[in-house]
């Protein structure tokens, strides 16, 4: 509705309201009104007041025109309450919509919680057993998924201990995988697998490095006793020098 029409309507309604109010006052002073007539006058006046207020509201919210001073819209709107049968329904719709969305959000948060809890259970069920665990990081007690600590320092200790046992096992496996001449510091085959022909003062080859191991092997394989003796001497000299 154009602003001029809205203002025109407001002025007409306001004029009607004032006219009805004046007539009612005069009729009251004359004393000739029945109760029913009085009630009808009051309803009519209220309807006109509502119409004027709605006209003012329409101007203030739906047009760019400033609220008029005459009729006094500001004063009228201040005492005007939005009719319950229309606006309460609207408010309720908005609130219900918000409530529904909040419910949706909360429901979704709950579902996510459940999903994460299920995932955490899955994580825990897949956690390596103490035998294969390498221990908690940084030496700290490992947190369980979900931020709560397993609260089990002793478990961690066990895990570490067990991993130590496992480590020995791994080492053996690793040795099995070692190529020839693999991990130094491991006993040579001659010292662990066969009866050694080494002189009594020759230690086992547990701490032999590659050079010492080769000397040892050469000495053991040598059939010429003189050369064999020289090789063992060489081995002794090398071992005493490398210590």
């Amino acid at each position, binding site marked *: 509705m154009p602003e001029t029409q809205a203002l025109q309507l407001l002025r007409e309604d306001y004029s009607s309201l004032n006219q009805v109010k004046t007539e009612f006052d005069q009729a009251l002073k004359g004393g000739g009104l029945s109760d029913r007539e009085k009630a009808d006058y009051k309803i009519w006046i209220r309807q006109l007041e509502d119409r004027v207020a709605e006209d003012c509201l329409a101007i203030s919210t739906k047009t760019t025109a400033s609220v008029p001073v005459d009729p006094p819209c500001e004063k009228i709107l201040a005492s005007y309450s939005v009719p319950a049968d229309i606006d309460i329904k609207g408010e309720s719709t*908005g609130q219900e919509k918000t409530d529904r969305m909040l419910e949706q959000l909360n429901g979704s948060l709950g579902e996510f919680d459940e999903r994460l809890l299920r995932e955490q259970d899955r994580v825990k069920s897949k956690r390596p057993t103490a035998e294969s665990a390498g221990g908690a990081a940084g030496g700290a007690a490992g947190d369980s998924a979900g931020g709560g600590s397993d609260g089990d320092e002793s478990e961690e200790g066990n895990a570490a201990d067990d991993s130590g046992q496992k480590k020995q096992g791994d080492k053996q496996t690793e040795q099995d995988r070692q190529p020839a001449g693999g*991990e130094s510091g491991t006993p040579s085959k001659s010292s662990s697998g066969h009866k050694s022909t080494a002189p009594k003062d020759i230690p086992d080859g547990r701490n032999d490095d590659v050079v010492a191991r080769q000397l040892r092997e050469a000495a053991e394989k040598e059939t010429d006793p003189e050369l064999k003796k020289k090789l063992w001497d060489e081995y002794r000299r090398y071992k005493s020098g490398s210590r």
Partner: protein
Amino acid sequence: MNTGGINQAVVKRMNKLFKIIILLFFQLGLLAGCATSGGQRTAKQDEVLQKVSQELAEDQLLDVWIELFEPGELPEDKEDARGLSLDIRKAEAYYIPFYLRGVMEKTGYWGAVRVVPKNTEGAELLVRGTIVSSTGEELRLEVTALDASGREWFRKIYKAKVEATDYTSIQPPSDSFDALYHAIANDLAQFRDTLTDAERTNIRQIAEMRFAIDMVPDAFSGYLGKDDKDRYTLLKLPAEDDPAIQRVRLVRERDFLFVDTLNGHFENFYRQMASPYLEWRKARSTEAAALREIKRKANSQKALGVAAILGAIAIEALGGSDTRVSTGTVRDVMVIGGLYSIKMGMDTNAQSTIYQAAIEELGESFSSEAKPMVVEVDGETRELTGTAEAQYEQWRDIMRKIYASETGLVPVSSSTGVTE
């Protein structure tokens, strides 16, 4: 004699020398400047982990998120790269941040310390890292720390070396490079101590607002300022009873829960990985040390052998018939010994090939062991992150609509980019 000409030549040469010296100083200065801005620290073997002397107030504890590390690049030199692989590096990219997490948790300086996938939003203090080098004997990491306000605490390269023998007493949950992890944790704690209580609170508030903006930009975009250097400034704070921030906090709680769940997967990976990883590093270090030693010995043996033979020849050539008779045995021993030494030198050379093969085999063996673990944790991380991202998108949408409904303000755009 034209002394003037000589003097002029001397002066010219002096000037030239002076210019070179100035240039060198300038270049050295530049290099020094680079070193200062970048920073490098070699961790001492006895680096002690700095811990709080008394428990810190909860509101002063910054939560730390450590991003999964960048695996970095393998050495270009074939010899240096022997037995290393990208599969091992990928495994280390999970292992190292998780180990660092454990070390930092022990200090008492931090709130929750968690490992997160790259580019995860919401950290109060974010630690990023790249593996520059990891050979079992040496670990070199580039570490960057920046807080929620976008301030870079530092960017440093941490370096530590160990010997094969250092592994003998190490068992999980310890690590042979504990000193390096301690150095990182200590530097972070040291920087944290330079901040005032207000600054730490500010970092926490900015982290929360960044998360809030990510979730409901319509409601919170005006709360933070961001400059052209990506530094954030807190402009205002929402009221404690603001329903929008309360909803954001509910979602943030879920975000923490999600990160914790992810860390459950990382922990499983770490536990599976710790022992074989330690064994691999130990064996590799042993083989590498032996390889170096054998190469050194091979060279010296050959040199000694040649010297012995030359010595024998000299005795033969210089001595008389009597000498030849009296030194006959010595010469024979020298020649035999020399030949033997040369043979040994050649044998040890052949042995080095065996060590090289051993190093490669160790790497291949550990790679094949680590690869399926990495694939598994990678898959679980992606799946969980994907689920969470889809969920967050839904929450963003709902919260924006609720905010619009509550305030009557029309959202700037929907989650799909369409104006509502």
